[in-house]
């Protein structure tokens, strides 16, 4: 997380920044909850596309736990995707 701007901020600025961070993070966490159990498409590096049912993420957004992962090599019942291997993901709501 980004702490650099906190160092010089005055109290009012700091508070605005904290409120902004809360709003941004809250909406992102809610999106992950809304994604639970839904089919998600993942665009990985090197032009690999895979689909899976989303399970959960760790809080640092480093790993996604998924089920029924469809890869070019077959279906994997349970899997962990490393977020550093993913370019983008999408789902429908």
């Amino acid at each position, binding site marked *: 997380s980004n702490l650099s701007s906190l160092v010089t901020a005055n109290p009012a600025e700091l508070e605005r920044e904290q409120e902004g961070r809360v709003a941004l993070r809250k909406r992102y966490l809610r999106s992950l909850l809304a994604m639970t159990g839904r089919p998600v498409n993942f665009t990985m590096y090197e032009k690999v596309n895979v689909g899976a049912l989303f399970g959960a993420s760790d809080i640092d957004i480093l790993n996604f736990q998924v089920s029924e992962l469809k890869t070019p090599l077959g279906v994997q019942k*349970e899997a962990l995707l490393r977020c550093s291997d993913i370019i983008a993901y999408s789902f429908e709501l």
Partner: protein
Amino acid sequence: SIGRSVQPPTEKPGERRLAEMKKLYGVGASKIQAMETTMQLSFDRNCDKKQPNCMIK
């Protein structure tokens, strides 16, 4: 480094985490922490129960 306080060895990791959260999220820290805890719990539970294979490449 300048300005970094020495952490007493008796400090619990949870307390440090809460202090960090307060710095980042201010009055909203406990709300965010509650949401994060829920998510991490289900992540941990799923990983324990389902033992997913790490990665596809």
